[in-house]
């Protein structure tokens, strides 16, 4: 069951509101003696997160199926990027990673308990059973329920979280990847500070800035000096600003790509590689599974001031 993207927030007593955690959806099932962790498309993730085996001791029941979101933190906030670093590791390194990149399972639904399916039961009943049957643990938390949507959304914005989900109290659980209007998500714009590692050029015309992030948990031997390409951005930048970037870029160019995953070069386009020492504030809607930013744009309120001076100078000259 997937939430539908909502437009205006419905504030109604028939709904309950939860934080939308920015991580990966995870179904956790226990059947007598076997734990199974499954991702969104029922991909088996059991070996990736061995620390969740503790679930079998926390749930009072000989079998269960939980639904929730797996998250990882960075700077105190859920960070999809960090989680993906954990997810993409090869198995050999995992043992250390559970310590280095801890994950938390934010459980929000109970679909099966002691061999009995609860899908048809209203959300409230399932929730009650969930809260009654899951013991407290450091890594595993039952998502809190709030009765006021707008207030929660405001609090979530203040905390820099991804958004909220409104859930109909009476609703059953609709299995499968379908979207259902029993659950309605409201996402906030996300922000990030990225460094610029290159400028896309078409002929002499700058097209966009290539954004990168330091991959500090990178054990692959790419070395700390290389950065990960996370997307390119042009919206939010004026043509004049792009030209100033190129001007700056020519003076701080690199003969090689600073990215360990540089983009393919398409015909007629070149990339001016630059030292990834300048940062920009980027707004984006979400991370894609391959760690790129979805619909990024430069935060217009947080433009770098240094360019203002340059701009003023240019205007004076004209």
């Amino acid at each position, binding site marked *: 069951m997937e939430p539908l993207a909502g437009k205006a927030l419905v504030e109604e007593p028939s709904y309950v509101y939860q934080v939308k955690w920015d991580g990966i959806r995870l179904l956790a099932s226990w059947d007598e003696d076997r734990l199974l962790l499954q991702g969104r498309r029922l991909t088996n993730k059991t070996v990736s997160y061995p620390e969740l085996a503790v679930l079998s001791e926390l749930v009072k029941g000989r079998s269960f199926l939980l639904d929730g979101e797996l998250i990882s933190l960075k700077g105190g906030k859920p960070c999809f990027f960090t989680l993906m670093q954990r997810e993409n590791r090869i198995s050999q390194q995992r043992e250390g990673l559970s310590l280095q990149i801890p994950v938390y399972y934010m459980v929000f639904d109970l679909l099966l308990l002691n061999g009995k399916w609860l899908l048809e039961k209203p959300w409230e009943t399932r929730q009650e059973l969930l809260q009654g049957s899951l013991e407290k643990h450091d890594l595993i938390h039952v998502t809190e329920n*709030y009765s006021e949507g707008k*207030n929660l959304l405001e609090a979530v914005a203040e905390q820099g979280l991804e958004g909220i989900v409104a859930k109909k109290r009476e609703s059953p659980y609709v299995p499968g990847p379908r979207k259902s209007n029993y659950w309605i998500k409201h996402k906030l714009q996300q922000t990030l500070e990225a460094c610029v590692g290159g400028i896309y050029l078409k002929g002499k015309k700058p097209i966009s800035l290539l954004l990168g992030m330091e991959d500090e948990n990178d054990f692959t031997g790419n070395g700390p000096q290389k950065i990960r390409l996370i997307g390119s951005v042009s919206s939010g930048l004026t043509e004049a600003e792009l030209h100033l970037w190129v001007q700056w870029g020519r003076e701080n160019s690199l003969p090689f790509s600073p990215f360990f995953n540089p983009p393919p070069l398409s015909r007629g386009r070149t990339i001016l590689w630059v030292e990834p020492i300048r940062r920009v504030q980027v707004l984006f809607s979400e991370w894609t599974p391959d760690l790129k930013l979805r619909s990024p744009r430069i935060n217009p309120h947080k433009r770098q001031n240094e360019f203002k001076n340059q701009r003023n100078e240019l205007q004076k000259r004209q």
Partner: protein
Amino acid sequence: MRAMWKGSLSFGLVNIPVRLFAATESKGLKFRYLHLPCHAPVEYRKTCPVCGKEAPWEELARGFEYQKGSFVILDEEEFKSAAGESEHLIEIQDFVRIEEIDPVYFQNSYYLSPDGAGGKPYALLRKAMSEAGKVAVANITIRTKETPAVVRVYQDILALSTMYFPDEVRNTRELPDIPGEEKIRERELEMARDLIENLAVPFDLEKYHDTYREKLLEIIDAKIKGKKVAVAPSPEREKVVDLLEALQASVEKVREKKGKGKASQAKKSPKEKLTTSGR
């Protein structure tokens, strides 16, 4: 392979568009420095020794230390004026025999591949050079840096090796303790000649291995298998409960700010309570 440079190879009146690929890669193992008590990889920060503050990019300038402690600061304009017009160009100047160039000059090797319509002139130059048995000496400009280079036929491609400028190669006369013509007995020389003769084989680099690297990998593997692994904790173990508490505080703040709904204030906690009576 990914091109690291695009430009053109100029030869007389012909311009061959080419791409440059790194010919070699280092297989050396990378090690990071860990702070032993914490097992955390150390961070490098640029700080100012005078004010102790971290130095952001905007506050950095490049200075040349012309005598200890005294700097000349150059701004970007000045760097630019020295660089002149930078072009992506490999300009062939002369053709020489490779034996004339001592290996001490060679720096880095690259492979050249034709770009766009460069295929035909590339093939022509390759054929002519291999027939003449000569290599080309050229100037290559990568962005603002210019170096001498040699372009030659390697297997069935054109390869380029950058070279040091003559003044970058140190004079051997500065080397201490080099003997002059010593008196050497014929028998000793004979023995040395024999030894050389006995060890003379066709050149085969394949039989040389990086035993240091192999040994290190062996040690690393054994440590991983024996679970003697140093695990770096996050700088501060981030706890989700801290976030949950902060969120709770925000929720309460929002409620108070709105001063709204005594009903909700009346609740023991802003957290929704589920009761068996439901709603």
